Each structure stands twice: as structure tokens, then as C-alpha cells.
């Protein structure tokens, strides 16, 4: 049942750091976060790690496990072959604060740059009528738990600090898509803005973001690609653009 495991944990801060080897016991059914907690409680009382729900719902425990961006609370220890070392390091795209904790404020700044939802002025609370099928498209994107793994993996910013200024990242492309597809949202030009102000054009559809998303949101297929396609459409055909916005209001009684 319980077995000894070798774990390599990155320890350090903004100035300096490196991998530390530890041996830790692992029980059946445990996830990587369990191991980190055990190390914390028995060997390294000041080991820094973020977590909350331990059930893949809050997106706090994001880190890189053997180089891959993952949620530590949803990564089964048994998914690694016996004898394989497990290496945990902080998210690479964001500055380290300490150990496994990084400064993810970039994402909160980007959230601030996306124009908010605009409710129809004359639609009183309780009067909205929407079809399930129409809300589902946006609901897929609202499943996002803001783990920022997609932001971390995206090569546009992963090793290119200079791109961060003009690139919102996949998490916020789906936010824009969500609002764009929201049956009631009144703000126009969301797609154009994504292209012109939030760096949609810098994405070259590698799909890495979709691959790491723990919520299995089809970031590229359902958000990025449709937006890119329609941006092109609209550039050439303003009438069609108008039509899409009018259709969007059909849901309102």
C-alpha cells in the first residue's frame, strides 16, 4: 500500500532557488498535492504552495509537474510509473514569489482590460428569456476555474515577457468569446477588439492551451477559431456583422 517516493521540489524565491530532493510516503489513491502536504507537515514546515478545494474546482494548485502545467490536486501519484521521480516546479510564465507560489497578478490585470457584460437597458430583472441551447455555448467558457494553466503553457507569453503587454491570453479569449456569445450582451465589436487590442492575432492556434485545460474547455476550437474566422468575415462584410448582432437579441421577449 504505502510506498516511498522520490520527489523533487523547487524551492526558492525571486532571487534564487533550485530543486530539493525529498523522500516521502505515498498511499493508494493519493494525488501530488497530498505528497506536498505531507512534506510540508513533516519535513518542510515553510514550503509554500497554493490550494483550496482539493477537488479541481478552484484552480489554486496550478504548478508544473514533470514540466507539464497541471493541477496538483488532480494529478494521481499512480499515474507515474513506479520508480519515476516526480518533479514539481512553479508555473514558468509567472514570476516566482516563493517555492511553488507565483505572482499571477498579470491575469487579474488582463481581466480588468476586458469590457464587462452589458445588460439590455429595458430588460428588468427576472424578465430575461433564453433558450438552454443558446446559453450553453457561453456556459462552456464559464466553467473556467481560472487556474491559468492555459496562460502558462501558451508560447506567446511563456518565454516572452515582452508580449505580455499586448496579449490577453487564452483564458481571456474565452472570456471575450463568452460575452460575445452571451444571448443578451449589448456591447458591440468584441471580436474586433479581441483582434486589435487583446492580441488574438498573435495566437497561431497551436492548441496547447486546450490540451492543458483541466475543465476540458475547447479553447481553440470553440472560442479562438470561431472568433478569428468571424473577425475576417466582418472586416469584409459589415452587413453580416450587423446581422449577427441583431440575431443575438432574438432571445429577448
Amino acid at each position, binding site marked *: 500500500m504505502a510506498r516511498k517516493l522520490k520527489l523533487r521540489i523547487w524551492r526558492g524565491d525571486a532571487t534564487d532557488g533550485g530543486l530539493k530532493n525529498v523522500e516521502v510516503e505515498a498511499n*493508494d489513491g493519493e494525488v501530488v498535492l497530498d505528497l506536498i502536504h505531507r512534506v510540508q507537515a513533516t519535513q518542510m514546515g515553510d514550503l*509554500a504552495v497554493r490550494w483550496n478545494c482539493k477537488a*479541481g474546482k478552484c484552480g489554486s494548485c496550478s504548478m508544473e509537474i514533470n514540466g507539464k502545467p497541471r493541477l496538483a490536486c488532480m494529478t494521481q501519484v499512480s499515474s507515474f510509473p513506479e520508480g519515476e521521480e516526480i518533479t514539481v516546479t512553479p508555473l514558468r510564465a509567472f514570476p516566482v514569489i516563493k517555492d511553488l507560489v507565483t505572482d499571477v497578478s498579470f491575469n487579474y490585470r488582463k481581466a480588468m482590460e476586458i469590457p464587462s457584460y452589458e445588460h439590455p437597458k429595458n430588460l428588468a430583472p427576472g424578465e430575461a428569456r433564453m433558450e438552454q441551447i443558446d*446559453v450553453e455555448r457561453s*456556459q462552456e467558457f464559464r466553467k473556467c476555474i481560472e487556474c491559468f494553466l492555459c496562460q502558462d503553457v501558451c508560447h506567446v507569453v511563456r518565454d516572452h515577457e515582452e508580449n505580455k503587454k499586448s496579449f490577453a491570453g487564452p483564458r481571456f479569449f474565452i472570456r471575450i468569446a463568452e460575452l460575445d456569445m452571451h444571448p443578451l450582451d449589448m456591447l458591440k465589436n468584441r471580436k474586433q477588439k479581441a483582434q486589435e487590442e487583446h492580441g488574438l492575432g498573435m495566437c497561431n492556434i497551436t492548441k496547447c492551451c486546450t490540451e492543458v485545460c483541466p475543465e476540458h474547455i475547447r479553447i481553440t476550437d470553440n472560442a479562438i477559431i470561431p472568433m478569428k474566422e468571424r473577425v475576417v468575415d466582418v472586416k469584409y462584410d459589415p452587413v453580416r456583422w450587423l446581422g449577427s448582432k441583431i440575431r443575438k437579441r432574438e432571445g429577448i421577449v
Partner: protein
Amino acid sequence: MTSLEKHKYDVVVIGAGGAGLRAAVEARAAGLRVAIVCKSLFGKAHTVMAEGGAAASMGNVNEKDNWQVHFRDTMRGGKFLNHYRMAELHAKESPDRIWELEVWGALFDRTKEGKISQRNFGGHEYPRLAHVGDRTGLELIRTMQQRIVALQQQDAKESGNAESHIKVFAELTITEILKENGKIAGAYGYWRENGNEVLFEAPTVIIATGGVGKTFKITSNSWEGTGDGHALALKAGANLVDMEFLQFHPTGMVWPPSVRGILVTESVRGEGGILTNSLGERFMFKYIPEVFKDKYADNEAEADRWYLDQDNNRRPPELLPRDEVSRAINAEVKAGRGTEHGGVYLDVSKRIPADVIKKRLPSMWHQFYELAGVDITKEAMEVGPTCHYVMGGVEVEPDTAAAIGVPGLFAAGEVAGGMHGSNRLGGNSLSDLLVFGRRAGMGAVEYVKKNPTATVSEKAIADAAARIEAPFSRAGGENSYSLHAELQEVTHNLVGIIRTGKEVEEAIEKIAAIRARSANVAVAGGRQFNPGFHLAFDLDNMLLVAESTAKSALLREESRGGHTRDDFPGMSSKWRQVNHISSFDGKNVNVKAQPLPPIPKELFDLFDIHELEKYMTPEEIVKGGSN
């Protein structure tokens, strides 16, 4: 003390869950400057984990629903120990609070007519829970978070500064609520990132810190649920009410051990899931209490028909209030009819097609598949009780959410007491957060009109700073991780789901002993993001909460809702007239009995008199409510 970070605000909201964020929005709407402080990143508060839904009698699925029915269900669920006024406000205002979320961009699941869909839940007479699959809490918190961002964008447009009126201080722990001359003057805390200290000066503080689950060994709560607000309020001179009542949710995961306690939403039962023991018996039929006999089906045929025709059949007993289901599961396991890992079976696979399960319960499917290797569309889940919610909390004035006894202090959400009586109905928390979060915001607005400023004295600052420094200056003392584990063991074994007077007495002694040792907790490492240091403070709070719970549990010699005494198994109408009030004298928690506010006639008259006879004394029945 040269470089202490200082801020001045009108309101400091401690907590960025549903309650805190709703309070902040309300205070901001009145033009106040608000600081929102939370221990985690913005958007990660416990509320994010809520699954099933938010209860509001919108009547979208069954037109017969209205606030009166919701009020009755809430009082019944709480076994009539609820503060009637809170239950009344909650039932009346919940629909508006849900609709308002839609105005802010929330996307709930829909009915065929395009309205907000509502689902069945334990103890609710009609389908009442607005939901988004089984991730309703995420929708709620994201909507509130995005509402705050929208307001900040508006401020940026108007004043050039997005944080001119609302600023979120994420990953900052409040360690003290400060008073001057008997009134609130601010709050003190430290940044988790670097341990640096922060002073907030403000005439009002709204506590919205959520629950206490981490006091217990098996819990559905995250690390944040350490009862900070409960303890901060006690220390600031406020009271806690009815801390003996804890909700043990009947269905937590039991296997593998590392996920023990993680919640399995009640929607699984609401959608048709049934509970069976190791003999394959659908055992809940045996556990329908007398008071619920006329509302719950006593045979399988009727229980099954109810899903299709709710008007002519009684509800399946799987949907009894949580305390009843938890006790039943506990009894089955004790009698040797449990599963291999000490739970019972919960099964949806035989009643609902796989694709519907995946659509209606996506995160449950995910959770079991990834964490337990169980495919719930094909197999049964193993489940057992887990500590989930605290009904007890800060004693407040219902209309304003003002904490009784401390001018300028407010409390809303799970940290506030009274609303849910001895047992909370599922879905009533999310709506509670919105209803009383808003009211706390309004309460603060009114208070600030008369008390616009506050200043904290140098002495208070020095004291608060000394407390934070203390664990670093002790050498070789106790380890906070092991003390926490010991406390969890005590609460789990001695003040858990079933209690006896003797056990609780033992718990009180043991908690006191751990508390004495906790005065010697020493912290290794520095101040920079140091979980050992963080836990030292959380531990202190959990110990006060545990003491309050144990002492209240000892006094209440009956079984009711989330308090089951093996030595007093019955419910007594005498005890229904009593709230237990905890206060803190600087050394110990003291608990005293206080009469429950009598229910006014117009609310009394909403009930069938025969139902009230099951709960109230003959004198109360004759009196027929107060006027």
C-alpha cells in the same frame, strides 16, 4: 513600526466569498470606499465549491411556490430554532437576488420557457434551486467577481483610478478587529506573501469569513474554513449563537483516503440518486421521523412516482433534510451494513441515462472518475457523512446584519448565525449570502452616515503587531501542524455527528489542554509565504470555535438538527425556546442560554397548527405567536 502599511476606508469587508462580495457591491453603490480582504486569490473563496444551487421561490418550475412555502420549509428544516425574521427576509428577497445576478451576466440553466431552471433539493417542497449544472458556486462567485471588476472599470472611467472605491487585498489575513471607545475602528493583518503587516482604519467592518469545517477531521471545507471570523468576532466582544449546530453532509466521498470528506452534491439525490446499504436495501424508508411522515413516501413505488408527479405523491426519503440522512447513514454503518470503506452506496447509474448524468452532474462525474476511478454512469458511489457547514455564528440584528453588542461590526454569510436554526437546507446558503450580504452592506452604509471616521490608537497597533511577531520569537516549541491534527481528532471523536455528555466534557478538557500548548507554538522559517506561520493563527481561531461548540453542545440536553446527543435522543419543545450564546472574556468562552425571539402571529399562522404542536409547547400553541 517605521514602515507600517496603512489604509483608510469606510468599510473593510473580511472575506471575498458570495457574502463579502455582495456586501462590497452594496456599500460601493452608496458611494462608500470599500476594502475587500481575503486569504486566497480573488475568486477562490469557498463559495466557488458550492455545487447544487441557490434556493429562491421564483416559481419557474412549479407555480405554487412562493416565499411563504420557502419560509415554512426553512423553519421546518431548522426545526424551528431559526431566527424567524432572518428566515422571513431570506424567503422574501432571494428571488430578487438571483434575478440581479442575471443582470450582472450570470447564465443559469433554463426551463423550456427560457426562464431560470430550478431543481429539487432536500427539504424544499418544490423545485427551487437555481443552478448551473453542478457548479453553481463558481457561477455565483465569478458573477460577483466580474461585477466588482465592472464597478472598478466604471471608477477608472470616472476618476482615472480603478481602485478609487473598491480595492481587493488578496492573500492578506486579518488577525484582529480593532476597536476604540467601544466602537469599531479598523482591522489588522499580514500579507501572506511576505508577512508584512497592514493596518486598516475604518468605522465599519463586515465579517464574511465563511465556515469552520477545518476544525474537524473529515470535512468538505477548504483550508480557509478555520472559523477566523467567528473567533475575531468573539474577541471583538460580539456573541456567537448556537455553535453546537454543525451540519454533517450525508454524502462525502469516503474512498480513497486522500479525498475523504470531499463533497458529493445533494443534486445527485435531487436528480434521482438512491441510497442503499451493503445488503442492497434502500434503507432510508426506515428512517422517516414522525414529524415528516406525511411529506415523505414510505414505499419505493410512491417514491419513484414522485419524480413524474409531485402533486399526488410524497417525496422519496433520500430527500429528507441532511441531518436525518446523515444519522441514517451513520446508523447503517454502525450496524455493520456499510460498504468496505465505511460508507453506503449512492447510485444514479440505474435510473438516469449516462449522457444525462454527464450533462446534469458533470463535475461529479469528473470528480469520481479522476479521483476515485469510479464511473458514476455505470457504478455506485461510496459515500458517508462529512462536516460541511456551521449553522451557528455571529449573533446579528436580522434587518441590518449588525453584530449585537459591537457598534460598527457586521456579519453575513456562513459566519452569521440564526438564519438556519439547527439545520440548514441545501441551497439556502448561496441565497443567504446574497440576501444578507446586501443587507450587511446597507447596514454599514447607514452606520457610516453617523460615524464617518475612525482612528486606531498607537497602543492597539503595537499590541496587534506583538501578537503577529510572537510565534517567531519562541524557540523549539510546539508544531502547529500536529496540534491541528490533534484538535481534529478530538472534535471528530468527541463532538462529532453523535455526541454524549461525557464525551463532550472530555473534549472541553482536551481542547483547553491543546490551547495551553498552542501558546508555545513556534514557527520555523521566515515571514515570506510561510504556511506554518499562517496555520499558527488559524489554529488559534479553530480552538476558540471548538471550545464554543463543545460548551454549547454540553448544555443542550436534547437532539435537534445538527446536534445529536446519544444520551438525550429526543427533541424537546422546552429546548426549542432556547438559544445558546457564546461570549469571550479574554481567557475562556462562556455559554449562556437566551430565550428565542417569539415568532409573530402572521408568521405563526402560516403553519398548520398540528405541525407546530410537534415543535412547540402547549402554552406557545395557545398563545398563537406574539403580536
